[in-house]
């Protein structure tokens, strides 16, 4: 049975985001759910694998500080933020069947594959429930080839709110803009926004009218349905009521939105929207799927003419194509950091309370058994996480342990995330969080 709370948390899917029940966003002033823990978390998943050689400084084999070492070219854009960076090598995801992408399993820590529905909720959704409440606790954006983003503006491959309950990613920045900033928009977007608003209001009225004469047990259940429309309409109203605030953050709709030359124009616009949702306090969890969790994707705007599956067949280290893609990712990460650093929060900035998790839904490469699943963390959340270092693990702890760690830092005490003791006996040499990354 779907509880009201769950319903609120998963409004996301249609919009690509989850909705909380607070009346107003906290605009970054919410108390963290755990001392020093994150107030917001960003997951950035590049498809086709994350070869550790494209991130680990040359010659670095053992755990150690990044101070004084030079980051490899693909991630050189992160050089100024090295003290916030933690490169982790040696987690595994063998149980997620990540060859050709683990799909929902990448963030869920369970078996995933093409066409396999999610078997439980994913970490990003779980965090959106426990981090300080915002209007849309969870926003998912997905970057792909222009053709795919136009033909399938929402797909669901990476995030889920439960077994069989996928959460959709937004890929058309025009739609996402309309959803987030329709109330302060102009022109065609405004018209569409108002038309949809009027229609949803009317649907809510009709739905409510048909619930008038139900037996009491059904009234409650049907009430959840009608309340859903209140949530949808309420969200719009809430966003509308803080429109003055949102104006300061909403990106400008330019030709990249309406007349993109390359798919990367939309990628950039989607990132801008994601950043604006974080900065304005609308969202506390942002999931970015570059390649949307599948084995295709395109980056023609970077001068990468090849696309899709072939990219996954190429070795990544020293490959000019992969250098370009990883550099592009790194510039996006740098932008995220800079933008969040520009907003004061508490005695510091938003970035001080933010954790960015960069990895791939494909472990280390496209055709992989998942024995190594490299990850980069950015941000130490006021000292909750270690940073400025490289950590080499022994390959015996699963990505689930990383997710357990983030939950722990967010104030949730759990020993395992989405892993039974029976599975853990095979796939996890320890339990609880990864001590190696918590300060």
């Amino acid at each position: 049975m779907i509880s009201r709370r769950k319903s609120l948390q998963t409004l996301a899917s249609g919009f690509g985001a989850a909705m909380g029940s607070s009346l107003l966003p906290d605009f970054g002033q919410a108390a963290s759910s755990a001392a020093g823990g994150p107030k917001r978390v960003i997951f950035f998943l590049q498809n086709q694998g994350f070869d550790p050689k494209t991130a680990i400084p040359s010659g670095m084999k053992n755990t150690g500080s990044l101070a004084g070492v030079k980051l490899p070219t693909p991630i050189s854009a992160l050089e100024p933020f090295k003290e916030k960076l933690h490169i982790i090598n040696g987690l595994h995801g063998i149980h997620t069947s990540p060859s050709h992408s683990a799909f929902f399993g990448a963030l869920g820590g369970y078996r995933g594959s093409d066409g396999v529905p999610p078997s439980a909720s994913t970490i990003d959704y779980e965090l959106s429930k426990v981090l300080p409440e915002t209007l849309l606790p969870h926003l998912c954006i997905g970057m792909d080839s222009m053709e795919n983003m136009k033909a399938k503006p929402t797909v669901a491959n990476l995030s889920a709110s439960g077994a069989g309950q996928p959460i959709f990613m937004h890929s058309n920045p025009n739609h996402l803009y309309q959803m987030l900033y329709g109330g302060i928009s102009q022109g065609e977007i405004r018209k569409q926004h108002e038309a949809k608003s009027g229609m949803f209001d009317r649907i809510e009225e009709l739905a409510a009218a048909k619930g008038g004469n139900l037996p009491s047990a059904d009234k409650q259940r049907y009430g959840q349905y009608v309340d859903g429309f209140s949530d949808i309409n309420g969200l719009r109203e809430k966003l509308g009521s803080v429109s003055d605030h949102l104006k300061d953050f909403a990106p400008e709709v330019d030709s990249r939105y309406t007349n993109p030359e390359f798919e990367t124009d939309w990628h950039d616009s989607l990132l801008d929207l994601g950043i604006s949702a974080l900065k304005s306090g609308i969202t506390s969890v942002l999931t970015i799927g570059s390649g949307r969790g599948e084995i295709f994707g395109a980056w023609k705007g970077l001068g990468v003419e090849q696309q899709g599956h072939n990219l996954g067949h190429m070795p990544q280290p020293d490959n000019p194509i992969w250098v370009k893609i990883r550099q592009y990712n790194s510039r996006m990460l740098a932008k995220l950091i800079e933008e969040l650093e520009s907003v004061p929060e508490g005695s510091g900035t938003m970035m001080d309370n933010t954790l960015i998790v960069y990895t791939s839904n494909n472990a280390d490469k496209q055709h992989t058994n998942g024995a190594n699943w490299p990850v980069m963390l950015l941000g130490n959340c006021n000292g909750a996480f270690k940073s400025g270092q490289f950590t080499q693990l022994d390959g015996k702890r699963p990505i689930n342990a990383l997710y357990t760690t983030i939950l722990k830092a967010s104030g949730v005490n759990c020993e395992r995330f989405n892993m039974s003791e029976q599975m853990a006996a095979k796939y996890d040499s320890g339990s609880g969080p990864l001590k190696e990354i918590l300060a």
Partner: protein
Amino acid sequence: MSRLRFVLTVFILPVFGTLAKAEETYIPGQPIDETFESLAAGFLDRHCIECHDDVTAEADLSLLELGPVDETNAAIWKSVWAQVALQEMPPKKKEQPETIERLRFADWIVGELQEAMKDKGGFTAHLDPNKGNFVDHNLLFGKLPEGVELVPTSTPARIWRVTPQEHITRLNELINTEPAYDPEKPGLRTRGDVVPTNHGGELKLYFGTDRIIRWEGGTVAYATAVKSVPVVLSSARKHGLENYPDFYSVNSAEATQIMGKAVDILKYMAYGPLSLVGFPEQITDDPKSYDKVKPKGDLRGLPTAIVYNTEVVRPLTPVADLMKEEAYTEKQLREAVDYLFEALTFRPPTAKESRDYLTITQDSIERVGKEDGVFMGLSAIFLDRDSLFRPELVESGKPDEHGRIMLQDWELGLALNHALRYIRPDQELRNAIVEGRMRTREDVEREVTRMLEDDSIRKPRVLRFFRDYFDYDLGGYICKDNAAQARTGAPNGNGHFRAMFDAAASTDRLVELILEKDQNVLRELLTTQQVVTTNSDKTYFGRKLTPEESKVAQAEKRAADKALAEALKVELEDVNAKLETLTAKLKEDDLDKDLKRGLTQEKKKLDDEKKRITRDAKRKKSNINTSVEMAEFSGPRIYARVSRRSFGTGSMKPDRQLATAPEGQRLGILTHPSWLVSHSDAMDNHAIHRGIWIRKRLLGGGIPDVPITVDAQLPDEPQNTLRERMRVTREKYCWSCHDKMDPLGLPFEMYNHAGLFRTTELGEPIDTTGEIIESGDPALDGPVENAIEMIQKLAESERVEQVFVRHAFRFWIGRNETLNDAPVLQAAHRAYRDSGGSMKALITSLVTSDAFLYRTREEE
């Protein structure tokens, strides 16, 4: 309550309670108007406190301080309810409460729990199908004790959310034309069948795949490029009956997604594949013509990689008419509204509904223009209450003397339609509804008989019942540890998962074949020797070799490989010799031109032959299986229902064979890999789940929930068999429940966790013994040698048949049975028996029963 107060109370109450007992009557469903002091304290004192005081505290539980039901002690009371209702407590050796006393006490607890938990999430455990067996089987099918007075049954008025399968199938009707029923090839997917899950087990709606004539790349490229949307409505249950009306609502996330999908669907209804492509040239019967304009570069995985033919195969509806030209009339708009409303709710709109949606659409058009406005406005209909919930509200009927109102017209027609179908009523049923011929029991009997007799009217709900009842369709969702799976002899990874999805489709077909004969349906399902197979089933229905046999097979394989290598070597020498001669000949100076050409050609052939032999020498091995004795199948070619092409050339195939299982190794679908793997885990068999399945679904027993204090883990001891590792469940505290499940699950140890038959485990002869205890039918009780013997016994049992009828009741009536349903259940069982085990007779009996036909509205 203080101990002193309790002691005083129990001192007085025994006398009082005993006096009250003799006069009691019990009317099921009537609230028990008693208090803790007037009813419960006495019961506890008479039957519980002796063992559960603070001195003895059996099972670490003292009930001495247990007071009236409240939020804090609700868990204990729930446990007391389960133990008493299931007659687990008081223990058999102790004096038992009178039947009425027990019933009243159990009902009282439920009533109190409902009240206490009203604002705290509610108490609904008694409504869960897993607790359906809490109602005493003997009271339902046997003689009622004096004092029990039944009232004519009915079902509460309600709304019933459509299931995910039903919803996808309903939406699929809008955009895809499924083939008509072909009596020559029954089993192939046909209009009216459920939309099957795809190659990965995901339920999705596919757009335009019936028109794709070319795509670029392989399986994954196809899957990424085609348009598909996943199911939106959630279904949280994994096992058992998953669709009671009170399980589900539709949340805001789902509603929002439905809106998004609706626009995609409407656009496809209007424009077909044109709504999916980047270039109109992608729609052509000559794919080469598209090549002239298609974008350069690697298109794999992109929508632009697909070419659709020009044949219009989607249903052409008023939505397409409306969008044909820019201008439109109000009449066209209204026709589109009315068409869509009936397609989504299965009934025509009322005048108000038609007007409401027309207005919404007109408003949208006014705001954003026709193109976007039509799609936006019409999408609202996808969110009408009746598009997502089926009402059984009896708002207009007149109550009979028992306060019950009979469903009629659209509500009755759609209830009956839903009993069998996922798509809207056929024309005959629609006519009957519209013409006022769906108002009586006889009307229902007429229509259900007609529909059941007509194979071309597909009835996916019947198949769904068997999936829910048996749970044979879960194998593809059970993760397998690679090493553990490798030891079974079955394929690993995706090969295994696909085989399991294929196996579920095969078992579906087997069920249908048994339903076609419609005789002794349950017994046949439990004991059939027929199997529906794919090629991979030769392994899954095979026998795992013993270590000794495996060693012999390996030696044979080595010898065969050696012989093969030697034969190839001889072949190679022969070819080399010929080549040598030929090369020498070609070097001769005076060769005739034609002869030289001929010799050159011959040399080329020999070169190719040499390459082949060299390649074979490297790769070719004998096909001796060193792990499994493969099953041998022969029989006619048949078909099973599979997804539309979802994974390019790697999509599921419908081809099957109807064969016979290897003799002496299998008996019925409980011994088929589809069921066995569905009741296994990553590493091994799941004897406990299998035992619970037998206990609940065949014997009608109930098992209390696992106490939260129990750490339900078997030790990780790879050197020991599952049976040995299950020793932990034989500890006293666990065994009082596990004795009713483990001995029923362990006989299935004759199969490994991929479903292969085996005679040894860890090198030792397998122990497949088990026991049926406390089944409720003394003739069944006793030890069994293996699963086959146990199934044979169970298949002959009348009680088992009755329990099957109870599950059918729950599925078709949509709620748990109560004692008031006893006459319905008995009549259904009689109908099944008298007809020689006909499912049609059973369904007819159920859907013409009072429980199906009558609704009771709560008093305002």
